[in-house]
């Protein structure tokens, strides 16, 4: 069939448009997906709810029993920052491998440090991947970050989360494999 011959002929040339375009699209889609995933996750670390709690009023007077009505709305603010979700934080705090210790006279609390850096790190890596700055290194660092998250979830036996992060790792590896086909990058080096 002539179609097969044409394809072979096309692929033998340096400008194999159909195959490279597909791989480039694949690289871009993965890159954008991973970037959006990291950026929005980082942004959500600054999400919180503002509630207006007030004692229920009877005939215009606040009740003395403490019955409270609450209206709440989601908002983003630096003051809402929480690196590790509160529900998980308590579990981590009880883990001996997460406990603080002193090295060379310096008090180190790994959980607090991690809690502080997680959100900003996700944002920075998400942005570098989105903009194409040191794409391969950024993806590698994002992979390391997800490994650290995986380790934490293994500690507190959150197997669903471990599997979920495993899927992310596969996507990162695929993105690295397609890195040669990446386009629209600010800094292709590294």
């Amino acid at each position, binding site marked *: 069939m002539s179609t097969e011959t044409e394809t072979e002929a096309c692929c033998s040339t340096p400008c194999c448009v159909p195959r490279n375009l597909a791989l480039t699209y694949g690289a871009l889609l993965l890159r954008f997906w991973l970037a959006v995933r990291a950026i929005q996750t980082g942004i959500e670390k600054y999400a919180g709810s503002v*509630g207006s709690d007030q004692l229920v009023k009877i005939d215009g007077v606040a009740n003395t029993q403490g019955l*409270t009505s609450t209206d709440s709305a989601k908002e983003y603010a630096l003051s809402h920052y929480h690196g590790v979700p509160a529900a998980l934080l308590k579990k981590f705090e009880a883990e001996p491998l997460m406990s603080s210790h002193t090295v060379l006279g310096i008090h180190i609390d790994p959980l607090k440090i991690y809690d502080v850096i997680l959100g900003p790190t996700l944002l920075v890596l998400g942005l570098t991947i989105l903009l194409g700055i040191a794409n391969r290194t950024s993806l590698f660092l994002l992979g390391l970050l997800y490994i650290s998250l995986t380790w934490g979830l293994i500690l507190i036996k959150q197997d669903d989360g471990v599997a979920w992060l495993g899927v992310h790792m596969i996507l990162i590896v695929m993105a690295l494999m397609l890195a040669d086909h990446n386009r629209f990058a600010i800094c292709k080096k590294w």
Partner: protein
Amino acid sequence: MNQPPSSISRRDFLSKTVAGAGAGLVLGAPNILRAANADGADTIKVALVGMGKQGRVLFEAMSNIPGLYFQAVCDIWEYNRQGGVAKVRALQDHTPKGYTDIDEMLATEKGLDAVIVATPDFWHSPHTVKCLEAGLNVYCEKMMSNSIDGARAMVKAMEKSGKLCQIGHQRRSNPRYRFVLDHLINGEKICGQIVNINGQWNRAVSSSQDIAFNPKLTIKPEILEKYGFKDMKQFMNWRTYRDLSGGPISDLGAHQIDIFNWFLGAKPKSVFASGGRDFFKEREHFDNVMAIFDYDTAQGGVRAFYQVLTTTSAGGGYWESFMGTEGNIKMSEQSAYTSLFREDSAKSWDSLVERGFLKKKAAPPRPEATSGAIASYESKPPEGFELPGDLPPIRLRSGGTAPKPPHQPHLENFFAAVRGKAKLNCDAREAFESEAPIYYVNPSALSHQPIVFTPEQLAV
């Protein structure tokens, strides 16, 4: 109440972290910041006695209360003790001393203000009495004791020592329950004459299984024996043994039968119960119990039916329903189970809605009308309402909010009383007067006989 140098309250922590959060993305380290106790409240030094499941529940609730300093942890099981120490350390950056024996703890620890007792039921009374005699204020989990004499000893020790002893009937401090009693039942009398009460706790068989344990964590036999357990299985499942607990009617039912008595402001005059080992045939206690209490109240006679089933969750969980001639209030610690209904023949509650007492629920679909003889016996469906609020939410370290744990208001009331700023909502005497009839449910079920109470049976 002293000021330990490393204490930090959750409230201070939150206020400080919010203030420090302006450092932003780069410097933003909200929960790395620490602060001194800034609310001016004297710190209360607390010892935790019993760090099993219920002890941990209470600790989680207390971790939201400012001005507490957890000084010591006592539990005969190393696993619980170390877990408790770790939780305290995580909360307040201080490692409390752990003890196996409460006597050693009381002899060693200086400056304690309060003790939280969450040990198995048969230890409640000895532990509470020891602590009261040592001059400490006590919050003790319900049921007061596995025996009525143990409960009596607690009341006497409280009154002799002059110290505070709050019993953990936490609904007594729940704003929803207090609001309903003060405003709706006693104030507006929306039920009319309460003629019947129904209550239940139906728990699935899957949630009622024996608790397993890791053999590597087994307590030494001599320690188990010293503290009244014949083996590790009994230690883990003390709630199913007659000498150690009151069984399901005590574990689960006591909370709700207490509400019957509290809301009616009366003691029952008799109880007639039935129970059986219908599924868990190896257990000493009945797995299913039903009891009928008769009351004479100022408004007339009331019959109260209560069932605790540890073999099925069918029937809608746990609640107490107060049925009156004009309305019905179905209460539960779970807001979702709470509902109020007005009898069709009662006067309108619209003015109560306007004044803020109630919120109106959307009307349920009406069933198709039946005809003939049956219709003449049917009542019109009642009008539905709900409470206008709930417990206040707590602010999380993350900046979000969460429902306040149900035990927290009762613990807050206890610590406020320790500070001299409140009266206990359920001291040992009040708890005894409400709990006393419950001690006769199992004997009635065992003998298949009603028990008509004498004043002596219900007296301290």
